[in-house]
């Protein structure tokens, strides 16, 4: 809202929109006059943010009509990345793209077409629908880094991920690798309010973050050592008589196997691995187990640890089970899929993808859990009990590093086309140098985006996509929650932008999928999804205007009625699902991807411990760097380094420093701070420089301060179950930048 704007003038319509610049999708009221949004503010009646709006939400209008937005379809003329474009019509673009995809499909099979996505804040079933109908199994996001491994492992164990935390009734909450103070504002507010009423807050995080500063207990563990901590906590709970035997007897199988398995994982064993004291490890386990009911809040940290991720997630999940903090009031609840509405999975046309094509999903031979083998099993189990399956788009994806390798090497088979939508892979996917190589090499690339990102700059076609205020948005936790929050668009897309839904639909129709897209607009599709709720409305907009959200009545202890959606019908501490897939049914200990104990030679060259990937205001991944009002507040990349370590390397505050791993190096400025342990380095993610020319070879400085230059996607560094790659718990070295040094990404 702008004080020069009269919000009470004639002809103003107030639209119930949402922010859309992060997952929270806070409610926003948009004041619209003559088809233009003249002001926005937080929606005081939206249940999550209640009128609050963070920095990103506030600049919505600067984002909406920013001079650097892509507004018309662009076709490449000249060489890839040269920056020469021709403006064409949507129809021409789609026709040409369809023709090319048809050609590739005829020559190399539909599987030669892959699609890359990002952290989209809402559903993406339209993309999956398109890909299934087209016949390609190679859709992916960087979902591996964000919750999906957690979801799949937890669902394997107890039949659905218990991500619905009943905090209002709980006594303690562990934030495990999550920092809502810098990334999830409504969640942070909820925590703060409950803390005032007595909720104990425990934060497990190597950094002294905004949230850790408010915590009752902070565990600054060694990056990547969460598995050891979780195993030791299980040991303490089981062997010090803190387990909820009654709950276990009634609801779990495999307790004896688990107890035997963790017998050796004592706090004494874990202390040197986690850099915590035995007392601290005992303390956190005891507080959690004896202050029931309690919650464990998921955070991306574990999903991003590569090789140890799966086991760490598995061990963490078991903590709920052995303490009875699952499905009961005040604990972590299984919502199950939405039974009242049509879920995203039901919109995906998964049944149209043949088994032959499913088997070709890249990575599914190596990493079975988040691909068709694992997903099929889990979907089967959940259908039996819940009646529905989790969303395949997100939970059943081609393995991104393997797809990039396929582009580069032609193995297991060539991937010739990449459709990119809502992501800037060179920034967000692991091992940026390899990703960039792949993007440079891929035969055909189409990017749907708001901006001319480095990825878009290398594309053959760039299509302008409508953003936050120009689209309706539904939030249903990636199709895995039973509740829905809904927002409407404030205005129709400006210029020639279109909703990404329409991209997939129109492209699909050009490829012979006409009958499979009966909904003209996103609103039509959403209305179709919500109709079974039985509100008796005619349009989606009516749902937003009159209801805005749908929260079914919470049912605690659903399992008493229906059991758990696992083969045994119980919580499988010893997981048969994982075993059937060829994985360990119990979490095996393995050290962080690169560590000084298992890799002493490497540690000599790279003596410091690196973690990356955490969020920080005001940016979100590689977004918002063009918004001057936000960039002004944090205009240069900074990494965190302890004063002792800095002194060792003669690094002073604000110095430019190279941070290097086996993969390469990039530079950021030094924030010399006590917030991290000596020997720990924390780099900022997302940095690129859109103010520079986004053309080859610099591409907006996309490697210069990019933390993903440092991360690893080698198969052996990925989690064997989910295939998630290693952003955290790596080894690195630092040294000052000399004036004569070149740009980063070497």
């Amino acid at each position: 809202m702008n004080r020069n704007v009269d919000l009470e003038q004639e002809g103003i319509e107030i639209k119930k929109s949402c922010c859309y610049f992060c997952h929270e999708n806070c409610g926003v009221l948009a004041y619209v006059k003559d088809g233009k949004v003249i002001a926005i503010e937080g929606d005081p009646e939206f249940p999550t943010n209640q009128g609050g709006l963070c920095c990103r939400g506030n600049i919505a209008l600067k984002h909406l009509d920013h001079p650097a937005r892509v507004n018309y379809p662009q076709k490449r003329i000249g060489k890839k990345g040269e920056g020469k474009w021709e403006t064409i019509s949507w129809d021409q673009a789609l026709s040409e793209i369809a023709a090319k995809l048809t050609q590739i499909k005829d020559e190399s099979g539909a599987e030669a077409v892959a699609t890359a996505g990002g952290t989209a804040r809402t559903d993406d079933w339209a993309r999956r629908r398109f890909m299934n109908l087209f016949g390609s199994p190679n859709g992916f996001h960087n979902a591996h880094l964000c919750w999906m491994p957690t979801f799949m492992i937890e669902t394997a164990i107890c039949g659905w991920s218990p991500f619905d935390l009943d905090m209002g009734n709980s006594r303690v909450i562990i934030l495990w690798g999550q920092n809502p103070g810098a990334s999830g504002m409504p969640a942070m507010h909820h925590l703060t309010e409950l803390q005032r009423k007595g909720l104990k807050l425990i934060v497990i995080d190597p950094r002294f973050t905004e949230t850790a500063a408010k915590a009752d207990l902070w565990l600054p563990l060694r990056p990547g050592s969460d598995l050891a901590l979780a195993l030791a906590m299980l040991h303490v709970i089981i062997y010090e008589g803190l387990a909820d035997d009654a709950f276990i007897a009634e609801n779990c199988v495999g307790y004896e196997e688990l107890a035997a398995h963790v017998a050796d994982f004592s706090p004494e064993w874990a202390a040197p691995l986690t850099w915590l004291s035995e007392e601290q490890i005992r303390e956190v386990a005891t507080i959690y187990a004896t202050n029931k009911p309690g919650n464990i809040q998921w955070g991306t940290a574990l999903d991003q640890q590569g090789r140890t991720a799966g086991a760490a997630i598995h061990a963490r999940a078991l903590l709920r089970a052995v303490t009875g903090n699952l499905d009961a009031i005040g604990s972590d609840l299984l919502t199950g899929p939405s039974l009242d509405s049509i879920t995203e999975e039901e919109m995906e046309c998964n049944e149209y993808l043949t088994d032959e094509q499913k088997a070709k999903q890249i990575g599914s031979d190596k990493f079975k859990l988040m691909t068709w083998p694992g997903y099929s099993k889990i979907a089967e189990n959940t259908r039996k009990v819940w009646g529905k399956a989790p969303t395949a788009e997100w939970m059943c994806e081609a393995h991104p590093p393997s797809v990039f390798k396929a582009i580069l090497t032609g193995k297991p088979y060539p991937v010739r086309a990449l459709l990119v939508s809502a992501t800037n892979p060179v920034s967000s996917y692991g091992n940026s140098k390899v990703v960039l190589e792949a993007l440079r090499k891929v035969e055909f690339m189409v990017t749907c985006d708001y901006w001319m990102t480095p990825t878009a700059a290398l594309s053959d076609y760039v299509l302008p996509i409508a953003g936050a205020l120009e689209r309706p948005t539904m939030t249903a936790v990636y199709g895995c929650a039973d509740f829905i929050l809904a927002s409407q668009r404030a205005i129709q897309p400006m210029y020639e932008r279109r909703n990404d839904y329409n991209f997939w639909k129109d492209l699909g129709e050009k490829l012979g999928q006409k009958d499979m897209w009966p909904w003209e607009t996103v609103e039509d599709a959403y209305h179709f999804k919500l109709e079974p709720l039985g509100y008796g409305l005619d349009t989606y907009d009516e749902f937003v205007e009159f209801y805005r959200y749908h929260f079914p009545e919470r049912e605690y202890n659903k399992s008493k009625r229906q059991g758990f959606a696992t083969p045994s019908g119980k919580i499988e501490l010893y997981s048969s699902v994982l075993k059937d897939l060829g994985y360990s049914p119990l979490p095996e200990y393995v050290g962080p991807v690169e560590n000084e104990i298992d890799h002493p030679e490497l540690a000599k060259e790279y003596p410091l411990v690196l973690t990356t990937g955490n969020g920080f205001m005001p940016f979100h991944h590689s977004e918002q760097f063009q918004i001057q009002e936000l960039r002004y507040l944090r205009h240069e990349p900074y990494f965190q380094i302890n004063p002792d370590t800095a002194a060792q390397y003669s690094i002073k505050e604000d110095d430019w420093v190279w941070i290097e791993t086996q993969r390469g190096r990039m530079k950021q400025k030094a924030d010399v701070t006590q917030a991290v342990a000596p020997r720990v380095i924390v780099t900022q993610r997302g940095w690129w420089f859109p103010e520079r020319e986004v053309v080859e070879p610099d591409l907006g400085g996309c490697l210069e301060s990019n933390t993903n230059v440092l991360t690893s996607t080698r198969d052996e560094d990925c989690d064997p179950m989910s295939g998630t790659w290693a952003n955290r718990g790596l080894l690195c070295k630092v040294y000052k930048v000399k004036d004569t040094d070149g740009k980063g990404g070497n």
Partner: protein
Amino acid sequence: MNHKHETWGWMLAVDFFFAGMGGGMLVIAGLADLFLGIGMTSVLGNLLGALCIGLGACLLVLELGRPFQSWRVFMNPKAILTIGAWSMVLAMIAGIIFASFGIGSLPWSDAILARKLFAVVSVIFGLIVATYPGILLARHKSRPFWTGAGIMGLFVVSSLVTGAAAHIISQFVFDAVSSIVKSWQIVDASSSVVLKGLPYLVAGLLILQLILWIGYIWIKLTGTTEREALAAQRWMSGNYAMPFKGGFLFAGTFLPLVLVLLPGNLFKGIGALLVILGGVIMRLLVVYSGQDRTWLPGEQKYRSRLPIGDEAFLKAWK
């Protein structure tokens, strides 16, 4: 655009200098006229006093964000700057008229009573002009180096000593062009009287200046608050130490103290120029030391990380 918090700059410092020197010149000219006799100081000196104030006022106007609205500064009688503005105007007018009494060819040059009246007015407003910048700065609780009564004295002394030095220079210049001005029937200033007395006045004021400054810095460093001690550090061992000790204390105060007592016009002239230079240096240092503020928790680090203003992202999407 500057990532440092905005403060007053050199224009205001030079404005203070000219205003102070001009005010001092008017005070000395007026007092000499009232108590020593007519024509003690050169007409040039008298006129220069008023013109310096005018020059200061011009700089003040140029420093404004909206110079064409400068008339507004006369509007708020509660503000020191308003009192200063009015005084500058009145001092200028009174000074020019007072100086004009020294031009024989003008019809009113014989009106002794009127002359005395304007001398009094010049002295009063000249004194206000010479003093008010010091009062203005002294009342800044937000600027640790300025706050407190002490700085008022430093400004008054500086105004008087630079005023006296300027009169010495004016006299030399006036004598040099005396043949031309004789035809205008300008009352001659008795060179010997002026030049006999003023150098001792300058010397005395310089000794006072030395004592006051050393005392001021020492008191700030040891007898006041932590903030003030920190601000004074700049002058003792920080980035002001060289210009302060070498430029102002030595070249601008001690050296001219010696020179101005030596026989011969050359030494006196050089000494006077150095005093004036010292006055400029002092005003610049004082105004710039206003950048030391009563910082709030975490503020300096926050501001040090803000963009400077020439970064590419600020210009990329105009």
